């Protein structure tokens, strides 16, 4: 099913360019993230799938292979390339992220309860990770993107019980999945970029323009 939709939407050469653009974008994003946040971060080779919106929960469930619960950070981005980014961490990862990103205990004495601190850390880290990946894709494809504030779409959500898709069921979803790994804390997160038909049309043109910019 998945491969079928992918083949219907992208020709082989388009798929190959898309894959390489994502390889470069995510590679550059990890290099610059390491510099910006001072933490060694590894982004896996992005895996690109096209699916139907209604198939997304099942797909997430299989991909994440988690029987536990997850936290989902959502952020909309708007440019010629537009859509919705979903960053998914297993529940509990927010504690490790907090240790990682709040090493100098900046917020501990600020009469903020732990729950808020963990939520806000998830959102801020999500904003940087999503911005890094989208920012690099936009840069490679000569697009300028703006963003809505990120929000914590779901806290401790059980994917297996969840049959409601986070996107419109009849929409097409290009899922670009990467796994983040912060070496010091061993936190894993998944990023999915969900985009629409209009962006796909633009994307195809931009992919060839990217290729033509060489030589």
């Amino acid at each position: 099913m998945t491969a079928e939709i992918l083949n219907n939407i992208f020709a082989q050469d388009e798929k190959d360019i898309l894959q390489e653009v994502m390889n470069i974008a995510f590679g550059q994003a990890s290099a610059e993230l390491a510099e910006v946040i001072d933490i060694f971060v590894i982004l896996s080779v992005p895996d690109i799938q096209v699916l139907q919106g209604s198939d997304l929960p099942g797909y997430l469930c299989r991909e994440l292979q988690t029987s536990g619960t997850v936290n989902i950070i959502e952020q909309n981005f708007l440019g010629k390339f537009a859509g919705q980014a979903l960053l998914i961490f297993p529940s509990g990862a927010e504690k490790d992220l907090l240790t990682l990103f709040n090493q100098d205990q900046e917020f501990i004495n600020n009469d903020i309860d732990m729950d808020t601190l963990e939520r806000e850390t998830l959102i801020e880290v999500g904003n940087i990770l999503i911005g890094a990946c989208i920012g690099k894709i936009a840069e490679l494809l000569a697009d300028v993107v703006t963003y809505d504030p990120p929000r914590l779409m779901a806290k401790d959500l059980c994917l297996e019980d969840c049959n409601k898709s986070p996107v419109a069921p009849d929409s097409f979803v290009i899922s670009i999945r990467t796994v983040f790994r912060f070496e010091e804390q061993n936190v894993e997160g998944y990023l999915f970029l969900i985009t629409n038909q209009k962006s796909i049309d633009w994307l195809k043109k931009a992919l060839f323009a990217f290729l033509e910019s060489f030589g």
Partner: protein
Amino acid sequence: MIFSQIFETINTGLVVLDKEMCVRHWNRWMALHSQIDSSEIVGRNLFDFFPELNRPHFIRNCRSVLAFGHFCFFSQKLHKYLFPMPPAGSLAEEFDHMQQSCSMGPLRNESGEVESLYLSVQDVSEVVSYQKKLVRMNQTDPLTGVYNRNFMESQLAKEVVRCQRFGHELSLLMIDVDLFKNVNDNYGHQCGDYALKEITRRISAKIRQTDFLIRYGGDEFCCLLTETAPAQSLKVAELLRQQICDTPFLFKEHEFSSTISIGVAGFDENDVDVESLLRKADSALYQAKQSGRNTVVNTAS
């Protein structure tokens, strides 16, 4: 021309910073609220004026905006404010500093490269004040002013997690006013209300700031004693019982006495959740009632 007018007159703080964190623009709103004129700060490093911003978190966000051209949002919930400024008008009674919601974004040159960044500062003190009021209303019992059951459920869940994680002690007192119906029947509901208020006043005076008194139902109260072992909480319960029965109540021309029964339960490793702790306290309270009221019963006994 139009844009510079907007920049100066908009009801939002606007700052432009270059890659070295040097201030390039500082609008009138910023000048008015920070008491720093743009002629003083433009061309100077932001951290010379606001050393509290020179911390990893802020710098990390600046760097990421410059590197990726995305936006950063500094939530009021986490930061309270970025720029320390006095709150406007009567809000000064509630806040030490103006509560701010700030965001940051890239500014590009003609070739599209990110060259500098802007910061916008929004005064959200009034919204925060309103939110606080709503939260308070949602958590308190209107008659007695102590916490309500809604608050208790979320607080108890948090405390239980804390106990499990850090091995803290936690005790729960389930308190019921003995034969409260008689007060209402004999002296009227107004008097009943007075009795409930007086009882919570006496209890509140004897517990610590870190403990929580909750009106659980009509004449049922609950006391959460944090970091308190059962032996200690028994003493507290006994003290509370005396506070009620030792001094008669006085409402208009009526003088009457009242007593309370208390069931005490301590959190231990057998308690998997909130429910099991509540059940223990409830059954202790039931025993207290059975044994003739005006008594304290511990789960262990």
